[in-house]
């Protein structure tokens, strides 16, 4: 029930609607639940953006792993 997929915000329209791109696939989604700007990334669930995604490299899985792993080595 919780499929959510990342998408880039391409355009913001009236009425809490944004056009996003999932990867060569565009769709209008509702952005009632988030405050986003064009160029930002969001997670989309049942046609609604439910959160902004951080683009910070440090937050990628491998980075997190390295931090956790190094913390262990210490």
């Amino acid at each position: 029930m919780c499929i959510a997929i990342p998408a880039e915000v391409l355009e913001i329209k009236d009425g809490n609607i944004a056009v996003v791109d999932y990867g060569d696939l565009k769709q209008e989604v509702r952005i009632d639940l988030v405050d986003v700007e064009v160029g930002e990334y969001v997670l989309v669930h049942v046609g609604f953006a439910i959160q902004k995604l951080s683009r910070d490299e440090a937050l990628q899985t491998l980075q997190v792993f390295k931090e956790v792993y190094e913390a262990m080595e210490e």
Partner: protein
Amino acid sequence: MKVNMMHGAGGAVFAELLGQTLTRYKNNNAGGIGLESLDDGAVIPFEDKNIVFTTDSHVVRPLFFPGGDIGRISVCGTANDLAMMGGRPVALSCAMIIEEGFDIEVLEKIVSSMDEALGECGASIVTGDTKVLEKGAIDGIVINTAGIGIVEKPVRDSGLLVGDVIIVSGTIGDHGLAVMTAREGFDLGEQIMSDVAPVWGLVEKAMNAGEIHAMKDPTRGGFSNAINEMAEKSGVQVRIEEEALPIRQNVRSASELLGINPLDVANEGKVVMGVRAEDAESVLSAIRSHKYGKDAAIIGRVVEGKSVVMETSIGGERFIEAPVGDPVPRVC
């Protein structure tokens, strides 16, 4: 017991209905390959050649979708089944069942689309039938085509040999996701295009380039269903490399969005082949030289055993199973 939707979606449930009811004809073979084989078509020896014979009814909705329409599918679906037996498509029949009130202009568009596809195939519609049913007795239109082809040495779907290489002639999932996203309610419009096309040209090139042991078109039930049927009928295991599967980016995106496995949906212009390993590269380049084969890829190999195993990109393994029922878009 009642027929249910899963009986119509290919796969295991359908096979059961087939096995227990629909193939129980004593008169099921005219001398060559008959109904008992459940291959893409039948083969009837005639003089010193073989007639290939096949049929399919086409019920696709919407009638017109990005990249094609019910007319183009009706011709390609049957011509491709002939090609899957190694047969050159020669003649098709066309039986339409039409609902009262159906728009004649739409019918004209369907007919001209069929005609265009026929031209591409090099085949003709030589005989036909039309039934009109009262409003409500059928939903719009259904088109059945049967086809006759000619082949010297038929190719089966059951001919995989250990050591063979599995080739797919292009990207997977395009048709199924094009049709699904074109339906109302997802607002995805015409972004994904169906692959519906006649493959005989491509198949002919491939057959000239090397030894093809088995062929099947991954239509209803998708690649998952086709490859499982091939493996099971051939008594072998097929191992597929997840990372080698050619899937378009927008098909991949749509499949995540809709919770649909792209391997489980229909393709209408693709071939899955088992090819002698030595010939794999030459067959691959022959296919790639055809306009409908540009994205062809080697995606797996045949080993001893049974089932179809996916070697996942994380280094894991799982089975690829024929889907149960038609995939429904979902959010979990």
